């Protein structure tokens, strides 16, 4: 077994309206940044876990996404797996 750091980025599915992105974009515009288009607002979860190899760590994260972390009606996700170092990610 080895220790892996897994990051899950969850973002609005393309084509699904993203009111948060629109609101943040408008706010940035009002601060004097012209031409801003915020493309989307998402969220990231980072965890460290033990797995036999990198593929197994990714498979575990995929399972978590399918079961609870991602609502496929609204969201899509990307998983990044790296070897875990000593410090927090």
């Amino acid at each position, binding site marked *: 077994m080895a220790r892996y750091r897994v990051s899950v980025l969850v973002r609005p599915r393309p084509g699904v309206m993203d*009111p*948060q992105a*629109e609101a943040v974009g408008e706010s940035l515009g009002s601060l004097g940044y012209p031409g801003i288009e915020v493309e989307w607002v998402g*969220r990231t979860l980072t965890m460290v876990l033990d797995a036999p190899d990198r593929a197994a760590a990714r498979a575990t994260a995929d399972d978590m996404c399918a079961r609870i972390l991602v*609502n496929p009606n*609204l969201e899509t996700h990307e998983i990044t797996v790296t070897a875990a170092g000593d410090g927090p990610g």
Partner: protein
Amino acid sequence: MNAAPPAAVIVFPGSNGDRDLFETFERAGFAPAYHLSSEPLEPGVRVAGLPGGFSYGDYWRAGMLASQAPAVRSLPDLVARDGLVLGICNGFQILVESDLLPGALAGNAPPGFRHRWLEVETTPAAAGPWFSGIAAGTVLRMPMAHGEGRYLHPDGPGAIAGRMPLRYRANPNGSMADAAALLDESGRILGVMPHPERASEPDIGSDDGMALFRSARAWLEGSG
């Protein structure tokens, strides 16, 4: 007269509409009791209510963490016993997150938390335990108070046409097809975004929400 049907008001960490729901069940002739979400429902319960609020602080996605609670996991058993389920606001979000109702509830469009009185109208899909005796086209006045109530179904409005018992007369959140509520296929599980339990006495603005609770009680008494 039949004994008052036992109603469980499921209390999650972060619920804040539990007392409103308890009192409305009581007013409608149920025998309500608070029930901690960490325990499965008892077999004697005839109706379960999932109240409004911010269960688990709405962390990650509203309703997601609460959807895994033992009380929620026991809801299919209640429905299999011909029981009824009502999820209001955050309770509706929990029912969607637990796959007891289809689709998703996304952030309001335009974004923001909105709370005000509004009107919903019953549709031809308003039938079954929660809507018996309420004619299609009936206007009900009740308050809304949510930031994530934009209902979406991946297959479009046609997928919910027969299961959408209430529509907003003026859409406050961008919901598909103006959907304000959704039924499961059996008609026993109802998720509703505005608050019928906060429209339970004329002195506070409306008692239109009582119609749903009275309908449920009559249905339960009729079904034994």
